[in-house]
């Protein structure tokens, strides 16, 4: 452990400074408790998420390269992003900049033209969960836990882009040989690609019980189509919520503001339609860790969660 660095550039992303501020606040709390330091990336721009990449290739490269360049300027080689969409976009840009020389050169020239330093080195991006797990780990979480999440049954929802695709997230451990030509090498710190467990491990260390949640733990919530393709998103969210409920979960732990928003929004719609077994609320894993570290419900902004996890947590004496 301790291979990523205790002080990193923090790219919160647009969502965390607006509707998902609870994730931002609780992330900072958890980082502070675990003795890690987040250096806010000044004046960053949107990563383009899963939308802009369908409109323009070079545009998304530029958007992300600008953020990388800002991180380099602040003296960092590592960026952490708490959002699956942001970490995906940055890792995607990293992949193309590293593997395609012509893209790299073109991007550097355009960065200078746009008044930003060109990239002397391409910084690596990690999802914040990976960073917490490797720089602090379950042991540290256990030490810091003042109010164990005893009796809380959690379904850990990782979403798509935390582990996929392995080209960008570097999660695929292969046997070598011919595969070397096709697949990039697994990053030492990366989570398991089909059975991610970092969030399970951290929450278990904080005293929670994990319920069986495969394969819905990495099933899509509708993602970039949550607004444009409501029927598909609704069905996907229904499958996720029902699996969680029927496996006995009290709460769904999330690690992405977009998944979280999609789950909460469609949970509400499904409940209005009277669909059974969809009433499991959602909370960010950092909110749950914050509670375990002895912070109050207001400190981790539990009221912000539109799915209202407070009653469940109150019943168990955790908030």
């Amino acid at each position, binding site marked *: 452990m301790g291979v990523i660095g205790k002080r990193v550039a923090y790219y919160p992303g*647009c*969502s965390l*400074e*607006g*509707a998902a*501020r609870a994730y931002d606040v609780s992330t900072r709390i958890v980082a502070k408790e675990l003795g890690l330091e987040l250096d806010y990336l000044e*004046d*960053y*721009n*949107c990563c*383009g*998420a*899963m939308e*802009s990449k*369908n*409109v*323009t*290739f*070079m*545009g998304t490269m*530029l*958007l992300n390269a*600008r953020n990388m360049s800002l991180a380099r300027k602040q003296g960092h080689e590592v960026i952490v992003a708490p959002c699956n969409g942001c970490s995906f976009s940055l890792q995607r840009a990293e992949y*193309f900049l590293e593997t395609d020389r*012509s893209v790299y050169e073109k991007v550097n020239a*355009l960065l200078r*033209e*746009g*008044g*930003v330093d060109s990239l002397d080195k391409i910084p690596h991006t990690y999802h914040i969960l990976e960073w917490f797990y490797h720089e602090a780990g379950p042991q540290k979480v256990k030490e810091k836990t003042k109010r164990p999440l005893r009796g809380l049954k959690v379904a850990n929802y990782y979403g*798509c*882009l935390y582990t*996929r*695709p*392995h*080209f960008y997230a570097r999660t695929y451990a292969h046997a070598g040989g011919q595969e070397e030509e*096709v697949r990039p090498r697994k990053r030492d710190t990366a989570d398991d*690609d089909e059975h991610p467990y970092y969030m399970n491990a951290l929450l278990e260390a904080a005293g929670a019980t994990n319920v069986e949640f495969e394969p819905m733990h990495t099933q*899509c919530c509708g*993602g*970039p*189509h949550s*607004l*444009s*393709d409501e029927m*598909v*998103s609704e*069905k*996907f969210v229904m*499958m996720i919520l029902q699996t969680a409920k029927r496996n006995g979960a009290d709460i769904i732990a999330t690690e992405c503001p977009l998944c979280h*928003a999609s789950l909460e*929004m469609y949970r*509400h*719609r499904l409940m*209005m339609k009277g669909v059974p077994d969809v009433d499991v609320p959602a909370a960010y894993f950092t909110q749950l860790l914050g509670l375990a570290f002895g912070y109050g419900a207001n400190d981790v*902004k539990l*009221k*912000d969660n*539109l799915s*209202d996890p407070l009653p469940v947590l109150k019943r168990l004496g955790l908030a």
Partner: protein
Amino acid sequence: MAIHERSLVEPERILRKERLVVEGIDVSGDWNLIILPRVINDYDLDFAKEIINSPDGKTINQCYQCSYCTASCPVHNYWDERYNPRHFIYLARLGMIDELQKRADVMWRCVSCHKCTHRCPKGVLVEEVLKVILRTMAKKGLIEEYPSKKFDKFFTEQVLEYGRIEDGELLFGWIEKQGYKVVKDPILKKPIPFIGETPEWLKELTMKPIKSMNIGFLMLNAKHMLFHPRTKNWNRFKQVLRKVMEEEGALAH
């Protein structure tokens, strides 16, 4: 085990007779299912070339049609069999545009979950390739407007303008595009939640922070809706970005 590819044969090409005798032998029963052959004569080989020229589409030629991608795809498995990434790649490589066009109503449904890309044994960036196919078709005017493209453009325009995204404006702007009447304040022309037409579910959802008296949350989001968060040193960069996108032809269609 589901048969994944049965949907690729159009119903009108499947022939099943009550009684069938071939060269004096009665083959009625299980053996009388005939799939009529078809004639294809309009390949557009330049189509694949255009896809390969884009850095995110150049892995398309590594595909060996194993269908791992289709078998992992949630849209194929849980929504519509006709959504079939393997088949789209096949058609695009051959340049069979009219066959792609027949599937235009499902082609945009990819939710970018990347299961296909992750599992492809040949290292095709499947999701990216599919998006390049769609983008290329749109650029050539071979496909009509589809919902996700509308949203993608709407989103990208906001990024281009401000450098950042704001959830409220995105949500209400999108609802307005859907045909709801959103009420705006007369000075800043920003949407006002709670009045005007909003879908029922959204109305209830936006009421929640008010009911729970979550003042901090309301203030922050109101502030952001009135004064869109911006990236500070954006203007010069924005011009470069716009230029690049124009070169790609991304803003035209």
